[in-house]
């Protein structure tokens, strides 16, 4: 029963129904990409998985039910959600940002070195408050924090937004390497379909709250 199983997922904001019964799976060490028009419910799906939005249906990660738990409980089960905006603590320094949620003190130094291997830019601003970084750098910091936590399932909401083209390659190379080395399952919501599909094992197209199409790598 390993991996993520989602069936009949429904969610609404007040009277506006957004998800109308979504079914999807992410297998062990797989990367799934969600594409689709704006407002199709992609972001709401991630929020439902990470507990930010109340939803109905059944969602299990390695057999453990996720729905109904508070976001911090889901996060402690190894599900890390990098939202579209935010993801960093502005007044805290970059080092402190990375420290929050990362593994215990002993591993922290080694983890940092490992992360700087992929994102050297973070090392340059280590003692700077995160609020003073550029939008792109803050994005990298947010994702860096996620990678540092070695999550079981990583939810990335438009990771490329606000990144310079050159940085896109760096980011995806890192994500790909981590997926291969750590076996982290990932769901990535991304409009730059071309770059995302290069590393994805599955891709779902989400339209008006339902899964419209599923393509897996071995069937292209």
């Amino acid at each position, binding site marked *: 029963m390993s991996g993520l199983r989602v069936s009949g997922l429904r969610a609404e*904001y*007040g*009277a506006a129904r957004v998800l109308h019964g979504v079914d999807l799976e992410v297998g062990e060490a797989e990367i799934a990409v969600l594409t689709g028009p704006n407002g199709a419910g992609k972001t709401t799906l991630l929020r439902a998985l990470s*507990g*930010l*939005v*109340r939803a109905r249906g059944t969602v299990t990660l390695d057999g453990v039910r996720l729905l109904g738990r*508070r*976001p911090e409980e889901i996060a402690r089960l190894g599900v890390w959600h990098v939202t579209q905006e935010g993801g960093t603590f502005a007044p805290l320094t970059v080092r402190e940002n990375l420290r929050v949620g990362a593994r215990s003190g002993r591993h922290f130094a080694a983890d940092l070195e490992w992360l700087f291997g992929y994102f050297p830019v973070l090392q340059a601003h280590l003692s700077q408050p995160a609020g003073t970084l550029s939008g792109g750098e803050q994005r990298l910091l947010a994702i860096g924090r996620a990678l540092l936590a070695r999550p079981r399932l990583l939810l990335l909401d438009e990771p490329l937004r606000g990144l310079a083209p050159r940085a896109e390659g760096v980011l995806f190379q890192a994500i790909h390497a981590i997926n291969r080395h750590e076996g982290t399952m990932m769901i990535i919501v991304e409009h730059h379909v071309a770059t995302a599909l290069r590393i994805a094992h599955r891709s779902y197209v989400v339209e008006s709250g339902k899964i419209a199409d599923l393509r897996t790598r071995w069937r292209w």
Partner: protein
Amino acid sequence: MNAVAAGHRRLPVGHEAGDRRPDWPWRRTSLALVASAAVVLPFTLPPYRLFQLTLVLVYTVALLGLDLVVGRSGRLSLGHGAFFGVGAYTSAVLIAQFGVPYPLTMPAAALATFGLGWAAGRPALRLRGLYLAMVTFAVAVVLPPLLKRLAGLTGGAMGLTVPAPEGLLGLDDDQWVYFLVLMVTAAAFAGMRGLAGSRPGRALTALREHPAAAETLGIRAATHMTAAFAWSAMYAGVAGALYTWTAGFVSPDSFTLALSITLLAGVVIGGLGTLAGPVLGAFAVLAVPAVAQEFDPAAPGIVSGLLLLLIVYVAPAGLAGLLRRTLWGLLRRRA
């Protein structure tokens, strides 16, 4: 401003902003009922009860104004006790020191507090909600000592006694004052109803729900908020003038921060963003101390504190919300 709320719960905003909760079922009939009662009561109520009812109407006008800032614009003001005081003193000083006929003191009080509201509102509204509370807090705290300092004009710490308006048309004094206050209250309600349905009213609601989105739609927050703040200060000032006519005595220590807190409690207990709210809030704020004192002198504090906490937890929509829900429940069960 408050921490993350997992789900979304809509504030009672009225139909304009897509509030789908059932509206008051019999709008016409209940209005007529209230109007007729308001006219008959002064003749059937004993005079001291009438005096209490007049005070309720005076507070209603002040709460209508405060609701414009707290309910419709979602901002916290701690200064409306001070605007109430300025209105009361403007009227009292004009009558007692300069012998101005009392009806003329009403526009004077309105103008004074509108200007004060605009002056205090203009800078404060550029700041985030919390800071508006701080600026109005400062105004409320500074007013009593300031009034005492201008002793020559305001009678200082001794306060001012103001002769009550004489009854005309054969009514005795407190009935005549009651009808004066009733007329102004009706005008206040009409003004607020008109505003709620108008463009500025909707702009305020938009600004409260999502300031950034509203500004992208071209709603200039500063002007709308400042105008709303000035109008609400004027309502409080007008209520102050009515208070002077009713009570006949003003002293600096009756318009302290405590009055601002009482008004704030009243508007929340009554129900934010509704027209019935201020009336119910005024009743609650005046009835609780009177009723609670029967049990024990320290009771008013305990009872009003508990009531406030209860309202915030059990009925965030206030008494108006409760009333609406119970009546709608009855209707649905019957229909």
